[in-house]
């Protein structure tokens, strides 16, 4: 892997992890489209590189929402010590995040490897990317039927689980974590701004835990080969993720998912046709 490739993959990861366009799908499709045949996705050095990119993204998310996370963690600890639930907004959001994280935690641990082995090639990733676009259009259409627009703390625990299951769909390469969870949030009665906020808050422990669990891969025998690329890549992914989340939180104050839906649908169809024609593989 060259330095330029590492930097491009890092920026791609940082941006696409938070934009509702599927980072996993893009990290499969972009190297395939650019014919980066020198990258072995199963090599220990590449896996170590990916771990650092995820760490960079997770750190950026924690930094961006540092005040909210501090308040949420404090409220959760107080709640457990007290042994009682209260109406404190931070506590309500915190327990909804905990409940929403359970489905993706269980399904991620159980199904991540078999799902990626089944669908980790360009054609399925492209097909799922197109489906991801359709899901966003469907979400926007169905949202209009949900009359209420309410804050995160007012959604039910059942709806939190629903959002969590939607987030777990991102195990499929091409389905966006933030896109699926935002659509589920919209259908639960959240507006775009709160659905995005809930989605990013929900993604933080998942991305961080996934990265931390993979840390042993950093100490694999060949991992040091990409040490410089990994460090630069991690920082680049973190910066890209920070600016992405800053942009998206502003964007969703007055805009919706449809532009991302069009992007996923068009790119997904083009990549699927190219992969069927054998142009990318």
């Amino acid at each position, binding site marked *: 892997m060259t330095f330029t490739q590492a930097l491009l993959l890092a920026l791609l990861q940082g941006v696409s992890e938070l934009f509702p366009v599927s980072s996993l799908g893009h990290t499969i499709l972009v190297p395939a489209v650019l014919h980066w045949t020198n990258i072995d996705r199963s090599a220990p050095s590449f896996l170590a590189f990916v771990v650092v990119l995820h760490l960079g993204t997770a750190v950026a998310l924690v930094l961006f929402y540092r005040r909210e996370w501090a308040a949420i963690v404090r409220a959760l600890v107080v709640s457990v010590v007290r042994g009682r*639930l209260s109406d404190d907004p931070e506590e309500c959001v915190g327990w909804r995040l905990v409940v929403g994280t359970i489905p993706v935690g269980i399904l991620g641990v159980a199904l991540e490897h078999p799902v990626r082995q089944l669908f980790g090639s360009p054609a399925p990733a492209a097909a799922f990317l197109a489906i991801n676009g359709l899901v966003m259009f469907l979400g926007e259409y169905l949202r209009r039927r949900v009359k209420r627009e309410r804050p995160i703390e007012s959604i039910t625990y059942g709806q939190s689980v629903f959002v969590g299951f939607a987030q777990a769909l991102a195990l499929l390469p091409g389905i966006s974590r933030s896109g699926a969870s935002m659509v589920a949030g919209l259908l639960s009665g959240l507006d775009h701004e709160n659905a995005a906020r809930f989605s990013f808050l929900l993604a933080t422990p998942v991305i961080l835990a996934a990265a931390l669990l993979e840390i042993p891969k950093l100490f694999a025998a060949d991992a040091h080969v990409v040490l410089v690329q990994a460090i630069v890549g991690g920082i680049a992914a973190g910066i890209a993720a920070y600016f992405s989340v800053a942009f998206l939180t502003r964007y969703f104050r007055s805009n919706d998912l449809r532009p991302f839906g069009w992007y996923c649908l068009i790119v997904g169809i083009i990549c699927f046709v190219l992969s069927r024609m054998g142009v990318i593989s």
Partner: protein
Amino acid sequence: MKPIALILALVFFVLGILYWMGTINFFTKSGAAHEHHTTHLIACWALALLCLIWARFQSNAPARR
């Protein structure tokens, strides 16, 4: 509900240990994928912890319904 929460916590705790020892291999590659078993151990213990918190909340009357 408190006894159920405590039983579930115990079940997840034991399940985690069994995964880590490689005694059970549901959703894992059996044998060699040891770090994957550690992931299952952590996931099971996280669920056990949540069950204990659930049991803790059952100990006191809820502030709201």
